[in-house]
């Protein structure tokens, strides 16, 4: 006689068994000795079992779905490479956005992998520990798939080859690098707030949704595929972010001021880092889907508004300076592109003045600011270029001690005046681009006074020498190949040759 068929467990039972059921209390070592890092930040947790993973994903299901995602992704990547997908993109200028992505973002995925692995060992509660372990694997997958995808572009375009070396050295890459260094050198709850909540939940949609949709629109089959494959993990990371915030706030009322301070800090830091994405969307996509300002309205003002309205029942308020960040969405992409145009000689990707149709698009999307403050500047630079007097800024800029961005941003409410703030700490004066960055420093001066600022390091003689060519060598940038304008670059010559060949074939 065959035994009766066993009833299958439901999702909640499986989740309980495969996470909680795998945990144990230590007996011959104290729990505090086994998990030494999860108390020093002052976050009080009374009951770890209250943690719930809303997706209720267990390790076995995780492997199953990740395996399927990988098979699909690699089929596309292989096909893209086999069929010369690089010929089908909208324009070779587009590739410069991908250069910035690989040098600026991909190494952050690897940093996230490392630190989530640390949390996957060191968080006392088994629910978040398992979630952190999965996220650690996700982040490693993201780094690998991005490198793999972009390795195809590296065969045809300049600026990719030295990406890990550049990430640790180049002036503008210190912006995303220092953001992650700051998070990884914080305690576990601050890291969760920084990366899982402020970055993944509140801000990362701005990078991965409209920008990846832009990749699709510009014919970059490979990037959109890794982007959306990564983003499917990201949805899970977002639930981790929101759960960790709710969990901390529900566990003890004393946690609120600590969490609020972190939310304020990491919203502001994330907003500054994403200024690079603003520029990628408004200036570097030849075919555009939405402006940075529109993306900010959808993903921060609307989505963030609903989120913070929901969290207000715990006493959490909208991040400090959110109004100023929203005001800056009118300016940040234009000011950043202007910085890179002026310093194109030291950038690992190409720059250009937008064409008339692109300037018109910007005028239409930014009716309050573009014609008044930014279009005349780009038109003047275009005229200077035509006269053979292309403008280069040969002075090294002062950097903000906190976000490490050159101090080119303007005062809230006055786009004609550069913003400056400063603080004195142990008899030294430190400079900031904004009140947000100054507040962050003033709260942790011991930490931020040690920042590795690229311009200071060049002046101190730590970056290969005193001349631009010495520094470029130290960056591993090839003069006249990786840097300077798109017009006249080897990338452009090759792209034009491909287009000419295409016309010839078409007859």
């Amino acid at each position, binding site marked *: 006689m065959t035994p009766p068929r066993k009833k299958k467990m*439901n*999702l*909640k039972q499986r989740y309980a068994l495969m996470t909680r059921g795998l945990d144990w209390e230590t007996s011959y070592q104290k729990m505090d000795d086994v998990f030494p890092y999860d108390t020093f930040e002052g976050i009080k947790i009374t009951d770890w079992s209250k943690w719930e993973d*809303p*997706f*209720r*994903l267990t390790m076995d*299901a995780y492997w199953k*779905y990740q395996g*399927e*995602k990988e098979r*699909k992704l690699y089929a596309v990547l292989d096909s893209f490479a086999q069929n010369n997908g690089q010929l089908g993109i909208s324009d070779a200028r587009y590739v410069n956005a991908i250069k910035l992505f690989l040098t600026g973002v991909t190494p952050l995925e690897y940093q996230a992998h490392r630190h989530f692995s640390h949390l996957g060992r060191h968080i006392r509660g088994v629910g978040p520990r398992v979630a952190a372990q999965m996220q650690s694997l996700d982040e490693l997958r993201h780094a690998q798939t991005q490198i793999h995808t972009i390795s195809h572009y590296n065969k045809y375009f300049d600026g990719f080859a030295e990406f890990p070396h550049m990430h640790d050295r180049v002036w503008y890459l210190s912006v995303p690098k220092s953001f992650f260094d700051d998070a990884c050198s914080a305690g576990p709850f601050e890291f969760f707030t920084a990366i899982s909540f402020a970055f993944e939940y509140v801000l990362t*949609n701005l990078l*991965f*949704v*409209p920008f*990846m*949709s*832009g*990749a*699709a*629109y510009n014919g970059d089959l490979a990037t*959109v595929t890794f982007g*959306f494959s990564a*983003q*499917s993990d*990201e*949805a*899970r990371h*977002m*639930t981790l972010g*929101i759960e960790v915030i709710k969990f901390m706030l529900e566990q003890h009322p004393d946690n609120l001021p600590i969490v609020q301070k972190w939310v304020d800090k990491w919203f502001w830091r994330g907003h500054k880092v994403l200024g690079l994405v603003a520029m990628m969307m408004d200036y570097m996509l030849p075919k555009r*889907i*939405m402006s940075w300002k529109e993306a900010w309205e959808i993903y921060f003002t*609307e*989505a963030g508004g*609903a*989120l913070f*309205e*929901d969290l207000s*029942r715990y006493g959490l308020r909208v991040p400090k300076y959110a109004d100023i960040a929203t005001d800056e969405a009118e300016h940040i992409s234009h000011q950043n592109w202007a910085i890179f145009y002026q310093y194109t000689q030291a950038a690992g990707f190409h720059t250009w003045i937008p064409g008339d149709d692109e300037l018109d698009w910007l005028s239409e999307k930014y009716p309050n600011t573009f014609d008044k403050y930014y279009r005349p500047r780009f038109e003047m630079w275009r005229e200077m270029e035509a006269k053979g007097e292309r403008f280069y800024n040969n002075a090294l800029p002062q950097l903000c001690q906190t976000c490490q961005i050159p101090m080119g941003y303007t005062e809230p409410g006055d786009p004609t005046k550069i913003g400056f703030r400063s603080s004195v700490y142990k008899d030294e004066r430190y400079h900031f681009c904004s009140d947000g960055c100054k507040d962050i420093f003033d709260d942790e001066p011991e930490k931020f006074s040690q920042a590795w600022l690229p311009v200071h390091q060049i002046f101190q003689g730590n970056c290969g020498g005193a001349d631009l060519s010495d520094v470029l060598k130290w960056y591993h940038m090839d003069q006249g190949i990786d840097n300077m304008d798109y017009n006249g670059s080897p990338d452009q010559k090759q792209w034009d040759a491909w287009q000419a060949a295409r016309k010839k074939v078409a007859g």
Partner: protein
Amino acid sequence: MAGMVSITLQNNDEARPVIESILHDNPNANANYMPGAVKIDCPERLVVKAESVSERIGRDWDPQEIHLTIVSMGGSLDEDDEELVLSWGA
């Protein structure tokens, strides 16, 4: 004002029956198409029913298959064997 919840899915063959089910089961949902993806917004609450998707694809659909096509979301999520719910205040 009711908080909007949202789910963004890839706009591909695998996601289309899921998108269709969501729009059928949530009359107040609104789909915004962009290259490669669809962002579906709905006031207060949005449900993805396994039964609806299963009917459309002619086999049992496990709500965890959402992991293959989801791009992003807004709201608090709750998932079991029958459905996946996004809402605020949960």
